[in-house]
């Protein structure tokens, strides 16, 4: 009971502080939009490749849901910065000297990242709409893309929070974010249909959470949605979020040992 209440209070703190400067959420969307428009132009004709597999002739329609996921993924990996700032400013030690649930402290970081990812996902989708992207499954499709964005941001936010607690250094955080960022992005079908990539990448991508998100979001945008695959990937992302949040909560012990 206390865990739920504490989580609610801590999420409330994150949401309130976030909404105090809403302009940042919007400004951070500029970069993925540059990806969307530039890649959209650069690879415009790849949908004509022999072998196909894109499920649409409009590359930007193929790309838009993946950009929402990519943005959520990047946002998640960087979100540990918020934890580092709370650690540096002694906010976390102050909380740790109270009976507050440790899970609430990590869960609120995860929810914060998921919240940002869903709002940004919505903005990217709205702009994609203006660029001619149509979502085949309508309202449910919108909902699923947004939820997927949150569920991709969440496990990486938990990982990022754990790294923040273990290293407490921004430089390490940046190194880790860069180290996992691009490989996970390229070992997925984010930019190109999966049957156009080498076999080993096809195999690896099955274990890549970023690819789970890309698949779920793309399935609902393109015609011929495989709802089983959507459900499976969303379920996997959800399970991973729980597991990673558990790991992050556990790292509080290591953090306290170092105090």
């Amino acid at each position, binding site marked *: 009971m*206390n865990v739920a*209440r*504490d989580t609610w*209070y801590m999420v*409330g*703190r994150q949401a*309130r*502080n976030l909404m*105090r400067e809403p302009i940042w959420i919007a400004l951070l969307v500029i970069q993925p939009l540059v990806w969307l428009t530039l890649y959209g132009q650069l690879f415009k004709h790849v949908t004509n490749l022999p072998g196909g597999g894109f499920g649409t002739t409009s590359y930007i329609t193929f790309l838009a849901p993946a950009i929402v996921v990519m943005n959520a993924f990047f946002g998640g990996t960087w979100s540990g910065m918020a934890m580092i700032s709370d650690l540096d*400013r*002694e*906010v976390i*030690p*102050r*909380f*740790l*000297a*109270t*009976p*507050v649930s440790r899970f609430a402290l990590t869960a609120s970081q995860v929810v914060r990242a998921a919240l940002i990812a869903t709002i940004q996902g919505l903005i990217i989708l709205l702009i994609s709409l203006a660029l001619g992207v149509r979502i085949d499954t309508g309202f449910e499709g919108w909902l699923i893309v947004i939820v997927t964005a949150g569920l991709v941001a969440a496990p990486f936010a938990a990982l990022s929070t754990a790294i923040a607690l273990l290293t407490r250094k921004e430089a390490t955080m940046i190194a880790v974010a860069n180290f996992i960022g691009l490989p996970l992005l390229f070992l997925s079908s984010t930019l190109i249909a999966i049957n156009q990539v080498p076999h080993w990448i096809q195999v690896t991508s099955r274990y890549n959470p970023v690819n789970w998100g890309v698949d779920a979001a793309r399935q609902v945008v393109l015609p011929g949605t495989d709802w089983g695959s959507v459900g499976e990937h969303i379920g996997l992302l959800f399970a991973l979020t729980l597991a990673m949040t558990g790991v992050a909560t556990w790292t509080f012990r290591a953090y*306290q*040992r170092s*105090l």
Partner: protein
Amino acid sequence: MDAIVVEDLRKSYGDVQALDGISFTVGEGEVFGLLGPNGAGKTTTVKVLATLTKPDSGRAEVVMQDVVKDPNGVRRTIGYVPQGSGVDRDATGRENLMLQGRIQRMHGAQLKSRVNELLRLVGIEEAADRVVRGYSGGMKRRLDVALGLVHRPRVVYLDEPTTGLDPEARVSMWEELGRIAGQEALTILLTTHYLEEADHLANRLAIVSRGHVVVEGTPNRLKQSREGDSVTVELVDGSTPEARAIIESLNGIREVRVEGRLLRSRVENGARAIPQILSALDRSGIAVDAVDSHRPSLDDVYLHYTGRDFSEEDEAITE
């Protein structure tokens, strides 16, 4: 009854022995000061007592609750004001206090009125609904103190409450803390590396050096243990061995210590000793740069018990 019992705590970080058998007790309602330079182990002691970290060995109890065996019991009993500032800078003063109260299991009208009361008590009522980012250092620190008091804890830890404040803010913080201590019927554990602060606020204090307590008592008792005045003579050159012999031969001189070109003497009466010392040195042709006499201070106590000058040790460690 003792509010805090600390017995033979030890803790090391790698090769550094942060706590080396520190022991002390704090009675209920007392303001107890831990005085010592940076790195003496004060903050580590407070972290152990705040359940933030565990000792390697030893025992610590807060109102009969063991910090290792019953951390949540301790957490409900204590208010912790960390070194630096623990405020959430993106929230308002009131929001900070409301959240702190909620995670200490308070709610409703009771919490709201407590928050209003504290905002008044620490004198930040007018800034209550402004975001903390715009607060001055002194205001932030007052909010920190209020955060430690929300749930009416029986014991409060103030870890270096005035470090980083300008002298004016420091003095007004002392007044504030003195008033709060009286009004809230609290046991306060204060750490400081300002001798003046310990003298001003603490009923009783312990001088800490290298992870253990060197001496403990009321500020007055400690000062009285160093009877007489202190006279410091600064020589123009380094002819200290001669000067020392001359001063030691005079009447009423108890002990002489040499530090570089400084000769510190304990004397029965400073006003009578100074002319004697100066004329004796003059007769031997030893030139004096400066001379100073003062009543015993905690600085002298510190020097006596640790054999080191407080500010020097502080600097050496900070560097």
